[in-house]
């Protein structure tokens, strides 16, 4: 009998030893969770600045007040006191404070500092507050599609706010209180404090001054031409950093139309990056660049610079007739060289180039200029455009691609391609963010320009740029001309397609320009979608580029070039 009892004693003592000594850590870890209630400590969200340090997105201090009903000692007296402080109906508060089925209830969101100071001095048990800032955008509509916005709980959903959310958000901390089973605080509760780590501040490449200038210019053209939309992107062509990005119409970031989802989706879309269009004649820059480069390389199929193109208005390819936009009656489109063809934006000449270079060579350049692929900008939802696969492209398609039809690109793709054609042949991935700073102002990371491809040689680039300067001086780009600043560029007017057919009377007027032509510093792509009345890129879009460039010259006090 004693043996049996001794055996049992040893059995359960062994069991106690196993649980208490061997499984201690494991059990303690499991139990820790039920012993504490945590109050979140919100990390301050990083701010967004322009390249000069102008604040574009910041925070207003605000707090959310909440209660743990189980820790409230007297719901009705607490409700009476709180009602005065929070300005919330007493009955409503009492109902919330008495609902012990929930461990945590929000009493008031986004309230000011005075409220929580009053709350702190009243010291009601079971009522807490936590930082819950309001995101503010000092310039409201400015660059709204680029900046993007945050969701109700303060995490970035669109734009830079969304793309760089993990940098901006920081890491929330925790305040741990020891409580009993139902959440009543212990008297001498040891509160463990895990501080929050504030988010990083983001400095954009965007220049607030150029952005607001471009928005102003595009807003005017939107109004005067009664267009559906107006878009613009201004780049530094030397490294493809984005200086301005405009999508009109826009909306106010401080009063986001959250209740009208369709409108919000449409207005907040950064169409410069996410939407595609048929570029039309601005694409001739790429065709011309390919031809010049192949000519310099000695490819006999390239048409020489002094080649005189046929004056005919039409070309027949694969049995289809391709016409020039001009009727060729005034003689301007006769006996043109490449420079003149660019000036006149004569379509048949570029058909000749595309067909002469042939599918393989021409597609090599389309690839080098990064069409059909993402530019790699630091922004979500980039469109890669539409490019017929090389294997199925017919000659009649190739011919049209030569002057910017049968191909769709995003405005950003075109701007970057044009920049690389004239900056010496360097294709950089465009970027929106310049650097990251911690909340104490120290630099954490600076982004670098990323060279994706060489497109053409410096020589080709120089020759092409000279021709494009001529376009602005003598050709279709005249309305972008600024005396003494070597503005260069190319116009574009494309008919819009709807359901596979040309939509009568609907055009996209565009202009891609830059200056100074010999060492490009500013490049702007202007797109006016469905202008009413005059619709030529030369008359609708080119003047916008001039206004923006003039504004930049004023702003930066840029000297006139010699010669």
């Amino acid at each position, binding site marked *: 009998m004693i043996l049996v009892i001794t055996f049992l004693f040893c059995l*359960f*003592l062994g069991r*106690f030893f196993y649980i208490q000594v061997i*499984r201690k850590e494991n*059990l*303690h870890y499991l139990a820790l969770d*039920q012993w504490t209630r945590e109050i979140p400590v919100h990390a301050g969200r990083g701010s967004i600045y322009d390249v000069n340090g102008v604040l574009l997105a910041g925070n207003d201090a605000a707090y959310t007040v909440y209660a743990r009903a189980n820790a409230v000692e007297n719901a009705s007296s607490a409700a009476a006191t709180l009602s005065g402080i929070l300005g919330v109906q007493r009955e409503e508060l009492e109902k919330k404070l008495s609902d012990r089925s929930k461990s945590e209830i929000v009493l008031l969101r986004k309230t000011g500092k005075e409220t929580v100071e009053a709350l702190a001095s009243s010291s009601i048990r079971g009522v807490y507050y936590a930082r819950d800032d309001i995101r503010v955008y000092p310039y409201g509509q400015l660059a709204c599609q680029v900046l993007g916005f945050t969701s109700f709980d303060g995490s970035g959903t669109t734009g830079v706010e969304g793309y760089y959310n993990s940098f901006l958000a920081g890491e929330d901390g925790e305040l741990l209180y020891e409580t009993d089973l139902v959440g009543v605080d212990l008297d001498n509760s040891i509160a463990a404090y895990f501080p929050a780590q504030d988010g990083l501040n983001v400095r954009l490449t965007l220049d607030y001054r150029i952005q607001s200038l471009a928005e102003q210019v595009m807003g005017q053209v939107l109004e005067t031409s009664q267009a559906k939309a107006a878009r613009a992107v201004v780049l530094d062509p030397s490294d493809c950093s984005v200086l301005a990005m405009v999508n009109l119409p826009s909306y106010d970031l401080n009063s986001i139309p959250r209740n009208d989802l369709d409108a919000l989706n449409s207005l907040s879309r950064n169409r410069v990056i996410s939407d595609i269009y048929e570029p039309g004649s601005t694409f001739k820059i790429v065709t011309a660049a390919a031809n010049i480069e192949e000519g310099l390389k000695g490819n006999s199929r390239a048409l020489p610079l002094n080649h005189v193109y046929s004056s005919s208005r039409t070309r027949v390819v694969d049995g289809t007739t391709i016409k020039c936009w001009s009727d060729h009656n005034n003689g301007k489109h006769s006996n043109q060289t490449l420079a003149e063809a660019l000036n006149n934006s004569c379509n048949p000449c570029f058909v000749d180039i595309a067909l002469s270079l042939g599918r393989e060579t021409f597609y090599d350049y389309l690839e080098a200029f990064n069409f059909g692929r993402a530019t790699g900008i630091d922004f979500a939802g980039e469109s890669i455009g539409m490019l017929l696969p090389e294997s199925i492209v017919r000659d009649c398609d190739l011919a049209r691609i030569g002057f910017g039809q049968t191909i769709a690109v995003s405005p950003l793709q075109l701007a970057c391609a044009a920049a690389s054609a004239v900056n010496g042949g360097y294709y950089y991935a465009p970027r929106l963010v310049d650097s990251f700073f911690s909340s104490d102002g120290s630099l954490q990371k600076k982004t670098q320009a990323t060279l994706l491809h060489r497109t053409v040689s410096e020589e080709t680039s120089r020759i092409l740029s000279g021709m494009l300067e001529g376009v602005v001086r003598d050709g279709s780009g005249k309305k972008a001309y600024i005396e003494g600043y070597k503005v260069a560029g190319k116009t574009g007017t494309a008919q819009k397609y709807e359901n596979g057919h040309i939509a009568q009377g609907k055009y996209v007027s565009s202009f891609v320009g830059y200056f100074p032509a010999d060492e490009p510093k500013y490049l702007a792509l202007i797109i006016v979608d469905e202008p009413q009345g005059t619709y030529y890129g030369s008359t609708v879009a080119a003047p916008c580029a001039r206004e923006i460039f003039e504004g930049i010259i004023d702003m930066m006090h840029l000297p006139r070039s010699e010669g």
Partner: protein
Amino acid sequence: MGRTNKTEEGRGDLLFLFAVILLAGLGLVFVYSASCYNAGVRYGDEFFFFKKQLIGFCIGLVCMVAVSFLPYERLRKGGLPALILSLVLLALVFVPGLGKSNYGATRWIGFGSFTIQPSEIAKYGFVMFTAAYFAKDPGRMRGFKGILPVLLAGLSVCVLIMLEPNMSVTMCVGAIMLGMIFLSGVSPKTLLAICIPVLVLVPVLIIAEPYRLKRLSAYLDPWASPRGEGYQLIQSLYALGNGGFFGVGLFHSRQKLRFLPFAESDFILSVIAEETGFLGVLLLFLLIGFVVWRGFRIARGCRDLYGYMLVSGITLAFAVQSVLNALVVSGTIPPTGLPLPLISAGNTSLIVTMTGMGVVYGASRHKEGASPHKIYR
């Protein structure tokens, strides 16, 4: 075997007495520690359970001392009446108005705020009856027929307790019954014939009540239903784990903060384990083991079979309960409601156990050095 120890005559086994009082005193301390928070929240008086326990301790002490002056032979005639009284009290639980229900079981009879738990009394009633029955004619134990009345008494007590329901006390009485039959010197063959049906009966009883099955599965994997059936066991394991080897210190249990149900009664050992660690549990059970050892030593020292059976029966009841409770608390067997004798809050158990211990101590005082019965095991 048989040993005479004249020096203990008169004063009796004082070490045994002190150990028992020490255990009950420790019980007071830990009842306070385990219940103070909960009592403060529920009754606004953190000494609520402590005060109740203190009353039980005082009454128990008086009963213990009083009984120890009584020669145990006087109890011999009370064997059958004790059994009948036990059965009546157990039956009274089912009388509407008298029986008190709690946690889905009717285990108490009450008069106003005064409640008693008849099953605590019945354990000792059964011991008294069995000791008296065997002592009357030791020859009875040889055959199955002779044992039959003991089996019938045990079974009727078991059935009544089972109906409350209270599985663990039923198991406890069953174990005491088998233990006493064994101690009475029955042949191994007969013992086996009794044990097998009992062992078969256990799974049947478990399956018969759905809540027992649930508890069994909770025991096998408490984390499968952490908020349901497994809750109690998980909380007990958390307490044990938190205690570690040296414990978190007296009065510093976290699990008593309403996490651990029945912290002051059935699961008081969890709180002891948390506050004093494995070391505390080891020392506590060395003390309990000491009481059990001295109890059996006193039984062997009794001058007649009746004394031997009575004392060892009481000691056995104490040992079996202690071990069962420890097995429950450590998650070794499925959770059942069973107090840790002398320590857990609950006055019926405390007073009756202390009284029983008084009988044992009394036996150590009144023995006259007679040679022990030869069949003593």
